[in-house]
């Protein structure tokens, strides 16, 4: 299969209107408004084609993108003009429910996701601030489990003593964007919250830096940004999602160990993943309902 699963946003149909829209589309839309509906319908049809090659289907999906949406809510021209100011124009969160799947058996521990995350999100480079990181598990013959994550795995892993190994593997970690997020529950002022499309975010202009959310997160996914002095965590690259792109870690993963997409879609890379694998989540006994789904996860992973 040539079309990488995680490459396209499956339901980017309703996303549209992002900042990286080519200008000519704007012109095209305004010029061809009268004939618009016929074209839009045609575009929608082709955008939904599941077997289209990856790159092409993203482009066409994006083209079809904002159309049905803008049509139903406001005249297209109005949305187009406001798109310049409002980063969320043309994006309808009610059409999405995001989740990430991770196939542990595909992770090679190259650390490209960690590197991409730090770059994309300006995460401090020091080895104690991570929005995503990779852990290496070495289960030894004597029953001990040795876990390491040198600098989050950003530059790979050092060699291990092979004689002791029973089995060994890598596990990428990140914020689980829980459906029952304990961090949101404990935030005293409402500075961290769950959006309609299921992403847990932090409001950096409102966070008081009490760090209760960091204590409440069972996964160690949060940290205090040393400069802004506010809580930080993975956003699923929300700024990319609204533009029809996938999170940077997903984009950069060379082995498709990370699959991103729509949780509620009948068919999407994520739905396919869920059909084809036994799924496990981290610390499910805490009833946080994580939206990062692991396949082939070992019981030693905590």
């Amino acid at each position: 299969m040539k079309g990488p699963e995680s490459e396209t946003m499956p339901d980017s149909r309703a996303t549209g209107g992002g900042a990286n829209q080519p200008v000519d589309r704007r012109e095209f839309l305004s010029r061809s408004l009268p004939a618009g509906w016929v074209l839009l319908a045609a575009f929608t049809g082709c955008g939904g084609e599941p077997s289209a090659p990856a790159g092409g289907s993203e482009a066409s999906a994006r083209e079809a993108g904002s159309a049905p949406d803008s049509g139903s809510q406001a005249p297209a021209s109005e949305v187009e003009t406001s798109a310049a100011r409002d980063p969320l124009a043309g994006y309808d969160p009610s059409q999405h429910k995001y989740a990430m799947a991770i196939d542990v058996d595909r992770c090679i521990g190259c650390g490209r996701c960690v590197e991409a995350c730090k770059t994309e999100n300006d995460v401090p480079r020091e080895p104690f601030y991570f929005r995503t990181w990779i852990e290496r598990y070495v289960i030894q013959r004597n029953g001990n489990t040795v876990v390491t994550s040198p600098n989050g795995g950003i530059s790979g892993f050092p060699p291990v003593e092979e004689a002791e190994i029973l089995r060994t593997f890598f596990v990428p970690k990140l914020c689980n964007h829980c459906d029952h997020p304990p961090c949101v529950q404990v935030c005293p002022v409402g500075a961290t919250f769950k959006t309609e499309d299921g992403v847990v975010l932090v409001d950096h202009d409102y966070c008081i830096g009490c760090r209760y959310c960091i204590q409440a997160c069972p996964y160690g996914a949060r940290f205090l940004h040393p400069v802004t002095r506010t809580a930080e965590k993975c956003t699923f690259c929300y700024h990319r999602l609204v533009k029809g792109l996938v999170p940077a870690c997903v984009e950069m993963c060379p082995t498709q160990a990370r699959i991103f997409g729509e949780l509620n879609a009948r068919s999407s890379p994520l739905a396919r993943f869920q059909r084809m694998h036994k799924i496990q989540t981290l610390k499910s006994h805490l009833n946080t309902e994580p939206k990062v789904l692991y396949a082939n996860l070992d019981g030693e992973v905590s």
Partner: protein
Amino acid sequence: MRQQVSRLTVLFVILIGALVAARIFLVPETFGELGHFRAAAIGDIADLQVKYAGRAACAECHTDVEETRLAGRHASVSCEACHGPAADHAEDPMARQPEKPVGRALCTLCHGYDPSRPTGFPQIDPAIHNPLQPCTACHQPHAPEPPVTPEGCSGCHGQIARTKAVSHHALLPCTTCHTVEEEHKLNPSASRPTKPAARSFCGRCHAPDATPPPDIIQQVPRVDLATHGGHYVCWQCHYPHFPELR
């Protein structure tokens, strides 16, 4: 009303009034619109700058490379995984040229041997695999192929071949253990290769008195077949394509 009560009431009314006034003036405008948070924060976060343009953006101009890549073994590798974040370049191609990785460091990040990697993932030991050559001397990074096209068994059983290649059995040809009829290559399911079924087969190398093939230079572990492992066949405890590590 009692003097005490009235004075205190005035004081409390002032305090509560101050709190109410503060709420009216200081709560951010969009707070509570979508839930117990500042709705405008979503826009603030959505407005952050994208650094990685994504492979689709690269393909818009670099159609030839994209075609090559999609046809090869790096089809799932994003351009920016090797060339670095390039949203600025995608926006304005003249602004900056994305970097071209040189040497071996970047390639071995994925392809250097590591026992934690999934078995079958193509790996080399950088210390012995043409140490002084840059990878690109032999491999085309956009569509890497092994310098020798896989033929024989590895043409179909690539995963086993790659697993075996980093194991102690690396130097054994498949035919050491399997007998394959010519028919198997034409009609794989009609003629199945044989699999060793007896302990004595492994004993040909691993029994105390066995003489392994002369080109096997490393120390071969020996076991007494009479006492070792009871009634199990060897492969029930050992994986022959990837026997236990050192």
